[in-house]
């Protein structure tokens, strides 16, 4: 029987004006859905794949918006739009990596509506999962994307564990590279989760992509001053240059002393269910000259253990080249 998808299904809409009210609603309504910019939410709701009884619209919660300087870094409200993040003078001055990443998400219209919190907390784009097929991530017992005849060009080459979906976020790799911290609140209080640990793979919970659980609300994102103004690199490769999710993206920060790499954060998105911080690469290049030899070494290490599916082996050389370019620090992104 065909499903009518052209109208929004019925649900109870709440529009709280404070974080406390939001947490109260989350506590009271088990089958609830948090909506920030609505860009991920509306697909799920109109397609009837997710069927919440209650939708909590964060649009009226002023506490969740804005960018504040703090201790040499910044604290960004989770519902601050991507346009605001990309254009904020302090972010552009100190954390240009994030400004670049936020500024390349989707299209201007989407960035005007989409929030930083929504961009990092969005669900995967796996078309089998989003079509409502009963895959592992949807609570079933199979991955439709990991079969010999599946369309899996956009899927994972690393860390696949039954599910091969990937994180689609552009800002998440940048936040990990900047050692950001995610501030999460629920009825029991507040906890601060390093961005590196905020994103999780299917081995930890195959039905979630982040540490956020029912009742949790991502309140803000803190970026310490550690890498403020330091050399950085961001590049996103996508099928359509107008607007698209990344096939692979890379974000790095790399303080140098002369030509020697003092420290590094290199994070790759689009290759696994979570943005992967390449710790082995970082360890290998720390203290080395920022040159072609180091870039080649890093690229070799970066893809160790990669297991491509039928249609995504191209991601291996793509990832290697992006890592090389991050180490070379080749100007602006070009793709």
């Amino acid at each position, binding site marked *: 029987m065909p499903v009518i998808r052209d109208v929004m299904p019925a649900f109870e809409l709440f529009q709280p004006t404070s974080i406390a009210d939001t947490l109260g609603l989350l506590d009271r309504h088990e089958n609830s859905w948090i909506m920030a910019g609505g860009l991920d939410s509306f697909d799920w709701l109109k397609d009837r794949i997710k069927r919440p009884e209650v939708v909590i619209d964060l649009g009226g919660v002023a506490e969740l918006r804005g960018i504040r300087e703090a201790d040499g870094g910044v604290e960004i409200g989770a519902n601050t739009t991507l346009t605001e993040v990309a254009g904020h003078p302090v972010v552009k001055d100190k954390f240009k990596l994030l400004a670049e990443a936020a500024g390349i998400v989707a299209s201007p219209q989407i960035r005007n509506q989409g929030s930083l919190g929504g961009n990092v907390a969005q669900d995967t784009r796996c078309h089998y999962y989003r079509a409502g097929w*009963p895959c592992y991530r949807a609570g079933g*017992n199979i991955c439709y994307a*990991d079969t010999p005849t599946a369309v899996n060009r956009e899927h994972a080459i690393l860390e696949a*564990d039954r599910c091969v979906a990937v994180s689609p976020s552009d800002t998440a790799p940048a936040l990990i590279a900047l050692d950001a911290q995610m501030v999460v609140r629920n009825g029991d209080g507040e906890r601060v989760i390093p961005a590196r640990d905020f994103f999780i793979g299917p*081995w*930890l919970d195959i039905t979630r992509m982040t540490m956020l659980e029912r009742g949790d609300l991502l309140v803000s994102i803190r970026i310490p001053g550690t890498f403020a103004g330091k050399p950085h690199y961001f590049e996103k490769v996508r099928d359509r240059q107008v607007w698209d999710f990344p096939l692979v993206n890379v974000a790095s920060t790399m303080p140098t002393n002369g030509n020697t790499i003092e420290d590094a954060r290199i994070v790759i998105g689009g290759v696994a269910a979570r943005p992967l911080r390449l710790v082995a690469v970082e360890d290998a290049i720390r203290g080395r000259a920022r040159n072609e030899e180091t870039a080649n070494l890093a690229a070799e290490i970066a893809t160790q253990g990669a297991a491509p599916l039928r249609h995504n082996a191209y991601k291996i050389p793509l990832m290697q080249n992006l890592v090389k370019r991050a180490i070379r620090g080749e100007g602006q992104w070009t793709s």
Partner: protein
Amino acid sequence: MDLVTWARSPWGEDVLTHISWSLLWASIVGGVLFLLAHGGYMLFSRHDKRAAGEVDRMEAQRAGLPARITRHTFVARMFHWVMAVAMLALVITAFVPIIGIKQFAWVEWHWWAGILLTGSILFHLVHATFFLDFWSIWVGPKDIPEFKAEMMRELGKEHGGPKPGKYPLGNRLYHLVVMLAGLAVIITGLLMMFRVRNPIVDRNPYLMGDPAWGITYVLHGLGGVGFVGLIMAHIYFALRPEKLWVTRSMLLGWITRREYLEHHDPDRWKTPTRPSPSTHV
């Protein structure tokens, strides 16, 4: 409460996916209720060992029995404990993430533990068939007189019926249930290895159709949650004061001559009059 979960396949078929995790809680609650009921019953039950006078007389008649009688050989004990480690690892890796105590990369640990369990069971099949008294653990119609006698003793009535051979009736029934549940989880688990990437078999999700996979997952889940209650009962009996002599025998291998005569029928579990661990089964 749903017993199983269903999903609509891309081809519009309703297929089983797995059991409802409510059954895990049902198994835990069932196990706890059994422990409470049995513990309460045992406060009033007569223990089923022979009267001291009768044991004295039997001991005098069987003066050639060694002071310590081997109940479990070293190899048999090693199998038991390896299997126990594998089983506990399987239950922990399967259910700890589900009940939310700790989330971790459980799948690889789970199937490695499953391989260990499968290997230990294969070893046990060979060992029990060729080196142990294979039939001593099985239960069948021949045990009806023993069952009747045990029931009468539990009701406090003296009964001249047979005492157990090497294994008490409850022990044999438990083994039967564990064997069935074990076969279910091992066979389905080996099939499920084809659904995950591992170095042992090539992944092939097309090995069976969706309905057959659904049944496989449901059987695996039923066996798994069944083991939660079974393990609870097993540990409970191992720790009960009147059963500690059995537990000791699984640790050290032996029971005393008096324990042998108190709890067993020497005609049904014949043991040499000279200690020789390699021939005691």
